[in-house]
């Protein structure tokens, strides 16, 4: 066990592989420093120069830690911790003095792999993990077999990993899952993207540039029409002239929902978004997980959704919601900032005086949007202080948030209670997996208007301006040259097929590998025939399974030890020797065939010709490299004919 140059290259490769996936979220200066240090180490290894002195390394380490402190204001938490770990591992490479340091590095790099899972647990990440493990294992084996060449080392490492897979699967399925967290989780433990609890111009269009999956849905029965798929998220009440916010929630009354038609049942697999909303179709009636239905029909989970989550839900697509609304809420639903947008207010006042009721005002506003040449675009021009006026009468170009925002403004100005609802609209059907994919690019904002006797009624001004947005998706509603995410574009059938295949695979992966939790485990084990599952039973099963697999492997691996391979000539010769041994002529361990033949021939002169003949044939086959089948057959015949 020596720190040879190839071993150091192996360690370098391991550190590079475990750090590489982190490159995109490490601070750029850390990436630069680490790259430099690694290149320096590689050069030192190549040139054979001495490692840098301790004081220099200490200085660099302190500077690095200081830099991390300045960057993150802490050394703990996800990002700071990972950065620190990678920096220290790189520096350790420059302080490699004993085999023990190499062992520490191997352990450290195994640990760094796991930190990568905070950021991504996708299939490519898993495959990359296997590659990284292969390199780490090969390096590890190198430490304990000085002379083995690279190829057999890689083979051995690969074999070790392959053999570990069945047991890993068993452990994965049977190892009792404890619902985390065991202790507090850093707030930044998971990446977050998705809807926010406020809406300002640009927030929706920014989201619509993302291909990321928000959730996947499979319907129990016939799925509803696409234009009915409004996935309800945050409901926004308060407007400050620019941004819509939720305001403070009033917990005065239970929400009240009168179902008008059949219910739709479906299962949602929600990607973690670190917020509490669980998305459900307008209007949600029932959820399978503990969740609270707020007064404005938002479904809120108890804790922020930090892991992928699966729930069943049922919704009513035709409904009457909160027909008897409290005066306080109605008051909230007509509040507007004072003094802004005079032209919009004037328009609303005109409608209020000329039109008989709220429904007529709502229709007038929708017709207004339809008739006045509004354009649906991802790149609206910037708006001034009187944003609504600017939009309604000047630019007339906007995305869903502009329409929802100005529509609610007009309603409120006309005295009709209204609010903004955000969420997702539509979804892409994956016929391979039989489910809908809802992406961040499906994020949408619409409105609800409260009408006397009908309760809250959905009104989507975007649907009036660009009906194809709700019927066919963003791609259909925007001109071809709009900066759409790649996946939102219609593609050739082949690409589409490939994409659906990949997503179906991802979905299975999410459901069965990443989403494998306590409930899933119990469900699976029950389906496999285990009754009244308890920890003890699972532990026993686990032990039995592990024992059986290990036994099988031991058998498989050790079998080769006991199979001794003799070449056929040797087997025949040994048979010949056994025959002689029966006659009392035992071949001694030190005796070569030639000596033995001489001794045997002297002791039993009557067999001397046969003994000499067989020995000569054997020696020719074994030592003179005559491996012909004919010679072998002749020897076999001679041995068979040799009778005492």
């Amino acid at each position, binding site marked *: 066990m020596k720190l040879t140059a190839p071993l150091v290259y192996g360690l370098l490769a391991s550190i590079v592989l475990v750090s590489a996936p982190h490159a995109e979220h490490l601070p750029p200066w850390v990436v630069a420093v680490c790259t430099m240090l690694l290149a320096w180490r590689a050069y030192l290894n190549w040139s054979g120069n001495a490692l840098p002195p301790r004081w220099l390394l200490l200085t660099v380490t302190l500077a690095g830690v200081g830099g991390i402190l300045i960057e993150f204001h802490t050394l703990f938490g996800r990002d700071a911790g990972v950065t620190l770990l990678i920096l220290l591992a790189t520096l350790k490479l420059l302080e490699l003095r004993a085999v023990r340091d190499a062992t520490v590095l191997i352990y450290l790099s195994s640990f760094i792999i796991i930190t990568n899972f905070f950021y991504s647990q996708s299939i490519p990440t898993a495959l990359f993990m296997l590659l990284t493990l292969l390199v780490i*294992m090969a390096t590890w084996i190198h430490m*304990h077999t*000085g002379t083995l060449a690279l190829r057999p080392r890689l083979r051995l490492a690969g074999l070790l990993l392959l053999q570990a897979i069945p*047991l890993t699967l068993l452990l994965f399925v049977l190892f009792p899952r404890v619902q985390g967290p*065991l202790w507090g989780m850093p707030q930044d433990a998971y990446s977050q993207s998705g809807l926010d609890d406020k809406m300002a111009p640009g927030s929706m269009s920014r989201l619509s540039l993302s291909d990321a999956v928000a959730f996947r849905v499979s319907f129990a029965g016939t799925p509803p029409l696409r234009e009915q798929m409004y996935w309800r998220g945050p409901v926004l009440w308060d407007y400050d002239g620019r941004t819509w916010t939720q305001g403070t929630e009033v917990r005065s009354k239970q929400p009240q929902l009168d179902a008008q038609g059949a219910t739709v049942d479906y299962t949602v697999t929600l990607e973690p978004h670190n917020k509490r909303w669980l998305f459900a179709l307008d209007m949600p009636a029932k959820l399978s997980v503990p969740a609270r239905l707020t007064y404005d029909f938002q479904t809120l989970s108890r804790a922020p959704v930090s892991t992928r989550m699966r729930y069943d839900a049922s919704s009513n697509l035709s409904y009457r919601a909160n027909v008897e609304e409290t005066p306080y809420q109605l008051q909230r639903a007509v509040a507007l900032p004072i003094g802004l947008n005079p032209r919009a207010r004037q328009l609303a006042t005109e409608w209020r005086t000329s039109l008989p009721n709220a429904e007529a005002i709502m229709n007038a506003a929708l017709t207004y949007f339809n008739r006045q040449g509004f354009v649906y675009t991802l790149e609206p021009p910037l708006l001034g202080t009187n944003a609504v006026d600017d939009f309604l009468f000047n630019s007339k170009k906007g995305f869903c948030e502009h329409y929802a925002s100005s529509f609610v403004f007009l309603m409120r100005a006309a005295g009709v209670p209204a609010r903004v609802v955000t969420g997702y609209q539509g979804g892409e059907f994956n016929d391979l997996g039989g489910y809908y994919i809802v992406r961040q690019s499906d994020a949408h904002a619409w409105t609800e208007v409260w009408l006397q006797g009908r309760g809250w009624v959905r009104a989507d001004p975007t649907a009036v301006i660009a009906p194809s947005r709700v019927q066919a998706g963003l791609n259909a509603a925007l001109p071809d040259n709009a900066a759409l995410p790649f996946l939102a574009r219609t593609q050739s059938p082949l690409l589409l097929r490939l994409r659906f295949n990949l997503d179906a695979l991802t979905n299975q992966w999410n459901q069965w*590998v990443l989403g494998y939790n306590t409930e899933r485990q119990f469900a699976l084990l029950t389906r496999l025939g285990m009754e009244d599952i308890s920890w003890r039973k699972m532990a026993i099963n686990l032990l039995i399974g592990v024992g059986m697999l290990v036994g099988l492997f031991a058998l498989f*691996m050790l079998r080769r030890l006991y199979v001794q391979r003799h070449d056929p000539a040797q087997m025949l010769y040994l048979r010949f020797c056994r025959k002689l041994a029966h006659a009392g002529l035992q071949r001694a361990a030190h005796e070569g065939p030639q000596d033995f033949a001489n001794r045997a021939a002297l002791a039993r002169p009557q067999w001397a010709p046969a003994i000499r003949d067989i020995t000569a044939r054997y020696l020719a086959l074994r030592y003179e490299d005559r491996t012909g089948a004919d010679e072998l057959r002749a020897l076999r015949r001679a041995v068979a004919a040799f009778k005492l």
Partner: protein
Amino acid sequence: MLATLRQRFRTWLFRPKIESGTVTLNQRRIFILPTRQGLAFGGVLLLMLLGDINYNLSLGYVLTFLLATAAAMSMLYAFRNMAQLEIRAGRTDPVFAGDEAWFVFHFHNTSDLPRHQLTLRDDAGHATTFDLPAQHSTRVQLAIPSARRGWLSSGRLTLYTEFPLGLFHAWSYLHFDTRCLVYPKPAAPLPLPASTAQEGAGKLASSGEEDFAGLRSYVAGDPLPRIAWKALAREQGLQVKQFSATQGHELWLDWALLPYAEGERKLEMLTRWVLDADAAQLCYGLRLPGMELAPGSGMGQREECLHALALYGQGTGQP
């Protein structure tokens, strides 16, 4: 009480008996325990598992289980790396006290699995490391310094391996009856004693050309100058000239000639004389108290004398 029990347990477990012949390493002879690094790795795995549970990292579970299983499998590999090896002690050449005795062991790998990084070590820490390809035999030499003349036993040796990951230490005890003859350490150069018998004794044995008695076949150990090169050139095989004249010319290396030193010193001086007399190709005899080796010359005489000196006063001289 407890110490006795532990001792008995060890005696039973490790069966420290001295063996001869070929030893095959079977399950009962191989022991495995985790190394310190192995325990540390267990700690790392535990840490990883805690992280997986806390952050609910499914892929983290996969990684942790993969590493744990691979680590456990490495135990089988360590065992397999030693199992079914056949070991036999070889002949060990004598050395002079103070030199290293090279104990020879023949390792035979009958299986078609290559073995890696096997280490043979004695209790004092002298070790040698080697690899053993599939279906291959190898001769392993373990150097153990010799201190005193006489028989040097290899003692209990440990054959161990930490292949492939260094997490497990698999070992087996080997205690062969092999021993190495240690000659006394030769003293500083000192003049050979004068001849004690007739005149001419102590001269080169080959000095009397006229006493040439004939030729005989070469035997290993015959001095080179006695080889009949001419006969070899005539293709008569390797033959050695025999002289009758050497019979009367005797050099006696006598214990009694060294009255002034203590016993071990005397043996060392006699060793020096034997070496010098042999180097000079003289015909010499050795006299020790209660023992006399008739004069002779060549490799055989040298070995016989050194053997006698090595074991003088140590009971039976039989190897």
